[in-house]
Each structure stands twice: as structure tokens, then as C-alpha cells.
């Protein structure tokens, strides 16, 4: 069985995000970029499935400019067997992304597709669901547990009410949550080995997919800044101040 993993290059979670003064987006000038943390968890899970003898090959796929090869190489260094870059200079929205992924699925015929539940930059949480629908296969989202049994998978899902366990037939799309696993550290010699692993570049246009914009982004604004606090003398003053603000 092949497992296909989606990897997105995003602003690192440690970076303090700064909205550009004109509101057109966030400042990525000189900013550290990393693999979306949920995608790293997806890859870790695939590697564990392979190590347990339930998969033969793990393929990492990313959509973007050549800079995303850096994140694909990280995936290869973690242990993926090969990488595919769907090359485009445009920023793809979830539906176009799902269409592009579907083309790779049709070519590779994977038994399982694992994606992060969302990317930490746009927080859409749509690509996995759309991909399952387009592919017409089962989906199991927000997974915190994943067990492969032959042609099916038992997935524990993190839902509002607690945990839900479902079984899906394979092939299927699974999107993963934070508690599924803790990704491994990359071993230094594996970085060298990753340099020699195959990384195929497929232009988006060759897949017959166009970067369609179904969502128009109006403006980016930073969250409002907290105002200055005041010091009150006693409880009576506190009550008065709260009343003045209509909070009591």
C-alpha cells in the first residue's frame, strides 16, 4: 500500500505574526517557514504504519513554488520515500488544492491519504473533506488514533463531545489532530540521504487544474490591542467602574 501525505509550507508557529500595514496579508519577509505541524503529524503516522509493515511506500506532496522543496526535503529526511512538488507560483485555495491532489491520486493509486486537519496559516480545514468528496471515498477527520486492519482503518476522532471511533474502508482520506503522535527528530545522516531521494516536479498546468479563486479575501487586520488598565482604590470603585462600562 502507498500512503500519500500532503505537506504545506507555512510561517513557523514560533513566529510572531505581523499584518502588513496595507492589510494585504502578513509579513513573510525574512520570516522562518516550516512544515505545517499537523502535516508533520500526518507524515509521522504514515512512517509508523510503514514501519509496522502495513505500507510499502510513503510519498509526500506539496503545492507551491520551488521554495516548498525545502519542506519536502524535511519530509524525506524524516523518512518519506519520495516527493512530488506540484509547481505553481499561485496560492491555491482548498478546492483547487483538492483537485490537484486528486490528479496525483489518480496517478499513484494510494491506499491511504493522510493530511493535516488544517494548515496553521489560513486555518481552512477544507482540503481533506473536499478531496474525499471529489475522490468519492470515505473520510475520517480530526484523527487522534489510527489503526489499519487489512482493507479498513479504525479511526478515533476528536469531536466536540469527546472521542468518536469509526471504521472506514480503504482507500480513504484521514485528516489528523494534534494528539495523534509526536513527530520524530530528524537524524543528521538522514538529511544527507534525503538529498539523494527522488523529488519530482509536476507543473500545475500539466495536471489540467487551474488556480480558481472561490473565496475573495477582503482585508487582513491584526487583533485589537488591549487598552491600558486602571488601578482602583477599593471594591466600591471597582463596582462603579464596571457599572460605568455597562459590565455589571
Amino acid at each position, binding site marked *: 500500500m502507498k500512503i500519500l501525505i500532503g505537506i504545506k509550507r507555512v510561517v*513557523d508557529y*514560533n*513566529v*510572531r505574526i*505581523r499584518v502588513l500595514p496595507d492589510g494585504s496579508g502578513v509579513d513573510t*519577509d*525574512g*520570516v*522562518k517557514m516550516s512544515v505545517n505541524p499537523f502535516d508533520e503529524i500526518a507524515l509521522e503516522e504514515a512512517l509508523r504504519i510503514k514501519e509496522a509493515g502495513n505500507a510499502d511506500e510513503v510519498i509526500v506532496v506539496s503545492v507551491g513554488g520551488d521554495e516548498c522543496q525545502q519542506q519536502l526535503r524535511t519530509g524525506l529526511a524524516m523518512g518519506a520515500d519520495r516527493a512530488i512538488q506540484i509547481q505553481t507560483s499561485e496560492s491555491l485555495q482548498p478546492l483547487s488544492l483538492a483537485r490537484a491532489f486528486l490528479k496525483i491520486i489518480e496517478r499513484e493509486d494510494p491506499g491511504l491519504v493522510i493530511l493535516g486537519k488544517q494548515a496553521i496559516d489560513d486555518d481552512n480545514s477544507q482540503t481533506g473533506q473536499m478531496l474525499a468528496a471529489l475522490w468519492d471515498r470515505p473520510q475520517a477527520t480530526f484523527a487522534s488514533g489510527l489503526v489499519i486492519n487489512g482493507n479498513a482503518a479504525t479511526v478515533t476522532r476528536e469531536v466536540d463531545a469527546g472521542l468518536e471511533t469509526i471504521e472506514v474502508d480503504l482507500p480513504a482520506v484521514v485528516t489528523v489532530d494534534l494528539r495523534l503522535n*509526536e*513527530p*520524530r*527528530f*530528524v*537524524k*543528521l*545522516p538522514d*538529511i*544527507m540521504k534525503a538529498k539523494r531521494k527522488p523529488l519530482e516536479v509536476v507543473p500545475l498546468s500539466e495536471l489540467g487544474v487551474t488556480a480558481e479563486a472561490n473565496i475573495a479575501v477582503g482585508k487582513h487586520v491584526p487583533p485589537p490591542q488591549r487598552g491600558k488598565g486602571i488601578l482602583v482604590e477599593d471594591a466600591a470603585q471597582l463596582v462603579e467602574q464596571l457599572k460605568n462600562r455597562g459590565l455589571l
Partner: protein
Amino acid sequence: MTEREVMEYDVIIVGAGPAGLSCAIRLKQLKPELMVAVIEKSAEIGAHILSGAVIEPGPLDELLPGWRENPPPTCIPVDRDEIWLLSQQGRRRLPTPPQQKNHGNFIVSLGAMCAWMAPQAEALEVDIFPGYAASEIRFTGNGEVGGVIIGDMGVDLEGNAKDTFMQGIEIHAPITILSEGCRGHLSKQLIKKFELDKDSDPQTYGIGMKELWQVKPGKSKPGLVQHTTRWPLDSKTYGGSFIYHLEKDRIAIGFVTGLDYEDPEFVPFEAFQQMKHHPMVRDLLEGGEILSSGARAIVEGGYQSLPKTEMPGALLVGDSAGTLNVPKIKGTHQAMRCGMLAAEHIAETSSWQGFDAKLRDSAVVKELHKVRNIRPAFYKGFWRGFLRAAIETVTAGKLPTTLKVHADHSALKKLDEYTAPDRHWVKRDLPPRDRLAAVYFAATEHDEDQPVHLRILEPDVCTTRCVVEYDNPCTRFCPAHVYEMVAADGIEENGANRLQINAANCVHCKTCDIKDPYQIIQWVTPEGGSGPNYQTM
């Protein structure tokens, strides 16, 4: 524990700063067949680099001809120099000494410059490994340095292996280059082991803190380089500020204090914040927004303190050796030249032997010799230092005397030996409010479930001697508020406190390792990839 995996190289370079990267690039330019690797503890190249920085472009011209067509992301030709002598409210313009004339130099972000150099090294097939800390020296059977050992990852607070445990590998190489920057922890061990400093004065340091600001449009005059001295420091404390005007309404502002200050109650961070409230500086920053902040120790001993820079199997280069030129307030060109010289020496001789003599005969050390008496002249106070500096400058360092350099930790006075002058410090309101707020802008990150990387060799000293003699100065000199004295559990009534180490706040500046009066704080590398995440600092 299994035997460690081994990777072999011809040269292993510890630290991807200007010295290490220049060395790597030069090595591959001269001898492409050499296998060269650079190991770097920060998660990304440049993320632990913090500098002003105004640089002299000479070494870049030599190393990467044509760089001016493809310059690093922040690179502004210096247009004007100003030096200001500050009092609490007033200021007086001083003539610019020749060392500080910056015509032809560039304002850069040294972090961004290193991130720009790294791919150029990789294009020459240097293997660069960010996110891995060289935690120990590997010695060969006959006691020579034979490479480094990478720190284990996935170890918990108590030292046990976690699920993610990964044993660090050994990197073997006949030549190891230590380019860890100021007070590198491996360099420190090697200087001691091989007694490299037995013929030199003790090393002396400064602490530099820096912030990057987005200011109101029109406040920044790109290319303007301003320095200030005196207020808020007293006459006996060496230091001053830099204010570099960048493009896109940004200003890099920083403050440096000699770590040979005497006042046990002195808080360098507070001095920096005070300086920002001088009317001249405040006017630039007010209404702006702080983007980034951080701190790093600076090596200031110069010529007298330069240790022997070679030992069996290894070389010290750049700030690990101590080649910074204090009167120029610049170390980058010296570090780069030093790294390149090491590369040229290795390419020529395939040996570590003879590098020290070559370095001492080079432009790097000649430059240090010329200015050797300027920094120690300030031991006697600002005005006497100022006068001596002027004489040394006019005579180009040709006077026959060489002043002694003293150690920083022994300069600190005990509580009962010192009375602080009235500092006339002001109430402040510009961010960051305190050191914890500043740490937030350093984006520092350490997994808290890992061994504490600040080791106290004699913990009893903190609660018995130090609290009485110095009032635990670590709680004040650390710019990241790593050290705190808190009530010991259950015995609060006695007023007994214990030292709490907030290691996750650490910005890897090394000040504690330097200034602690008992020399019992040992800074070691945390898990690779930990530490600040500086952007364009």
C-alpha cells in the same frame, strides 16, 4: 545505549555565523574536494545571530566578489555618522573619531546576512546542519580534538529518554573549527583544557541588547548611523547605544554595557530601556511598534586577551577567539577575515599547526594591536578614558605601553563595598514593559521537558554566600529573566529563598556564564533547535 553513529568530514565547523560561513566558503573555493560541514544550534541559519550591525565590506568583496549585485536583504550604505554625549535631558554632539567613520560601510541585519551566505556555501557543496547542537568535543585516542558530538534529543527534565529520544551522532574530522561566537561553550572548555589563555590577559566582555522597531513614517532616515554615550550610565560604567536607521520605516536600536561594571544592583536591561526614554531617542520611537528584541554578549578584550588560537586538531576563529574591534564597534569584518585566514591556512597546509602565528601576523591582529589601549583606558572613568583614547588614536597605538585587561566577574563589588550613584532614571512607558515582555519579542522556544541547560555547579553558594555578598546579581544581569529567587516551599516565614531557573526564557547571550562573581554558572547547549528565533536581527 548503543554506539553512536558516525559521520566523517575533512573539516567540521561549529557555528554558522560570519566566521564559520566565511571559513566554509573559502575552504570550498580553494579546495573543492574537501568535505566540509557546518553545525548550527539554531533552528534556522541566522536565528541566533544578533548584531548592530554596521559592517566593513572589505572581506565580503574578497570572499564573494559580485556580492554588491546580489546583496543581502537588509543592506543600506551608511550616509552619515553622529555621536552624541547624553545627559538625562540634554545632548551634545561629539566629533566622530576616525575608527567610527563609516563612509563606505553598510548597515545590515547580520542574521539576514548569514541566512544569505548559507545557500552560497551550500552551492559550493558545504553541508550545513541547522537545528543540531555540538554539545561535546570528541577527543581522539591521543588527546587531540577529533570532531564533535551532537547532543541527544528527546531527553526529559530528569535526563531520561522520551519516546522521541534520538541519540546524537559523532562527527569525526581531523580539523575542527570553533566559530561559536562570543563565549562559546566548547571553546571555553578547550581554552581551559589546552591552557590557551596562559600567556594572555583574561577575556573581558560586554552585554549588547537590541530591538528592531517599526517607527512612524518619516522618523527613520535610511543610512543614518547614530551612537550615544554616557547617560543613563555613570562615569565608571563603560557603554553606549547604537541607533541605525533602516529602510521601510525601521530602526535598529541597541545598548551595550561593559560587563566589568561594579554595581551589584545594576540591571543592564533597565539601562537600555532608560536610554530609549531620552528625548532624542523617544522622539524616534514614540508611536512606533517593537518588532523584535534580543541580547548577546560581546567579546571586548581584543589584543591583550586573545588566547592562542590553535590546539591539536582545532582552531578558534572570530568571536570564539576574540577578534572584535571595540573602538570600531565592529566584529564582523574581523570574524570573516579570521575565518577566511583559517581556510587559507588549512587549504595550504592541511594542518591546524601554524595558524596562530599566521593570525598574529595578519591584518586581523594588527588592527587589534593599534587600538589595544582604548577599551582598558576607560577603567579609570569616562573622561580619563576619553583622553587616553584620543592620544592612542592620534599615535595609532604606537606608544610602547600596553594596558592590562581585567576579568569581568571579579570587577563586581560586594554590597557593602559599593554605594550606587544617583542615576536620575526616569519613569518609562515605551514597550517592552519588562524583561519577560522583551523575551516575547525574541520568540525564544525551549521544550520545558529537557535538562536545564544552565548548570549551577555549587547551588548552595546562591542561598548562603551570594545572597548576602551580592544579592544574587544573576536575577538582574540576565536580560531574559532566567534567574529568580523565590520563596522555598514551606519555609517562607524564614525568608529563605531558593534559586529558580526559567531556562526556557534563555536567549543564549552567555552573560550569566561570564558575570557570575563565583563563576559557578555553566551555560551548556540545550536541545538542538531551541533558543531564540530572531528575524532580521
